[in-house]
């Protein structure tokens, strides 16, 4: 059940492109044709499916606070989490390089059509973002990390496929000249993002469990804000006095 929930949540509700704006650069640059968009989307799914679980292992056994305990009790107090950026990006760069070699060997046509965008996957924020969200949301098991990687890759794939299809059609419409190209793509993406927001109730609508959690978080936030306001006001009063 957790797996299914995570799967749909990462595809629709927390969609990489529409909810967190990750991977926008290649999303905007490679979405002129459906065929290249499909190629890039598939590459992203593949790279994410490998790097997120790999980085999960790294995080769990090397980087986390106290993760080195398996080496021996004297290492248990180490917290290497400040190294996570560099470790994650190293994993990603290596994997992208590997994927590049494999694609060049087995599918030269795809390799040529992707061109510069294959190495650019290394700097696609969706990929690093996937790993960082995996870390900050504390995904508990390796299986769920794999699930998260694959499903957020699928979410990104869906987004780029949709925008590429729209852009192919929009060529026949009468768009105001200054909005052509980039401008209208931004606005269409904005409208799609509004559409995707409606998926927000998908998993919380039924039993309301998730909703309750969100609400309690909100209440806590409000309490904190209120306390802050009160303390600020106190400070102001002191100053004015």
């Amino acid at each position: 059940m957790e797996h299914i929930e995570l799967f749909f949540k990462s595809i629709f509700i927390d969609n990489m492109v529409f909810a967190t704006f990750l991977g926008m650069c290649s999303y905007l640059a490679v979405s002129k044709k459906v065929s290249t968009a499909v190629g890039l989307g598939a590459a992203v799914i593949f790279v994410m499916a490998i790097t997120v679980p790999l980085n999960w292992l790294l995080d769990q056994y090397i980087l986390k606070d106290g993760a080195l305990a398996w080496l021996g009790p004297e290492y248990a107090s180490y917290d290497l989490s400040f190294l996570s950026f560099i470790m994650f990006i190293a994993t990603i760069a290596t994997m992208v390089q590997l994927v590049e070699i494999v694609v060049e060997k087995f599918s030269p046509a795809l390799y040529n059509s992707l061109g510069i965008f294959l190495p650019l996957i290394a700097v696609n924020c969706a990929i690093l973002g996937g790993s960082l969200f995996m870390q900050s949301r504390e995904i508990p098991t390796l299986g769920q990390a794999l699930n998260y990687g694959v499903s957020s890759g699928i979410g990104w794939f869906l987004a780029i496929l949709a925008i590429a299809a729209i852009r192919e059609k929009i060529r026949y419409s009468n768009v105001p000249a200054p909005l052509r190209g980039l401008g209208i793509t931004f606005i269409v993406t904005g409208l799609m993002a509004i559409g995707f927001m409606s998926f927000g109730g998908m998993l919380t609508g039924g039993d309301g469990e998730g909703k309750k959690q969100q609400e309690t978080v909100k209440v806590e936030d409000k309490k904190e804000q209120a306390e802050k306001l009160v303390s600020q006001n106190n400070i102001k009063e002191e100053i004015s006095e």
Partner: protein
Amino acid sequence: MGLLSKKDSKLILDPLADNNPITIQVLGICSALAITAQLKASIVMALSVLFVLAIGNVVISLLRNIIPSKIRIIVQLVVVAALVIIVDQVLKAFAYELSKQLSVFVGLIITNCIIMGRFEAFALGNGPWRSFLDGIGNAAGYGLILIIVGFFRELLGSGTLLGYKVLGDPIAKTGLYAFGYENNGFMLLSPMALIVVGIIIWVQRSRNKALIEDH
């Protein structure tokens, strides 16, 4: 321009408008959109990118003759990652609340395509001083868009600027709110960031017809 030659000042001024990283080169969009709901976060993000891009450009430019071209992407990533770790730790130490708010997006400076793009396109072929200016110019062009978007989103979305209530108090109904004005909460949600950037692009291209694309 006594301090800088004409060519050098062009390095800084060009990316501000006609060769803007976000609206023309289509680079570095992700972070530009995600953290602009508040002006303060936008400014901090712009400054962080300015630091990373300017210093990184100088480092890469100094190293450009000894980096083997096959592994240059990894070298570049390591340089950026090291600089970003510095920014992240500084933010955590001195502005913890803000760094929580920016969450993963500080880390995502690493994959900000402006940075890799400038390394590839400029720092690998130019000297340190010119690379430094190029870094400042491009980061300023990026920051400019961030600050414009942050300004409008915070002003229209919560009626504040940098946390100050410039439009009056929505609860006590003072200032503009006395005339029935309401905050447009929609501006704080993510889709509006895209639409605001789309409008900036629209305005920019109607002023400068040379930038208009054909689909």
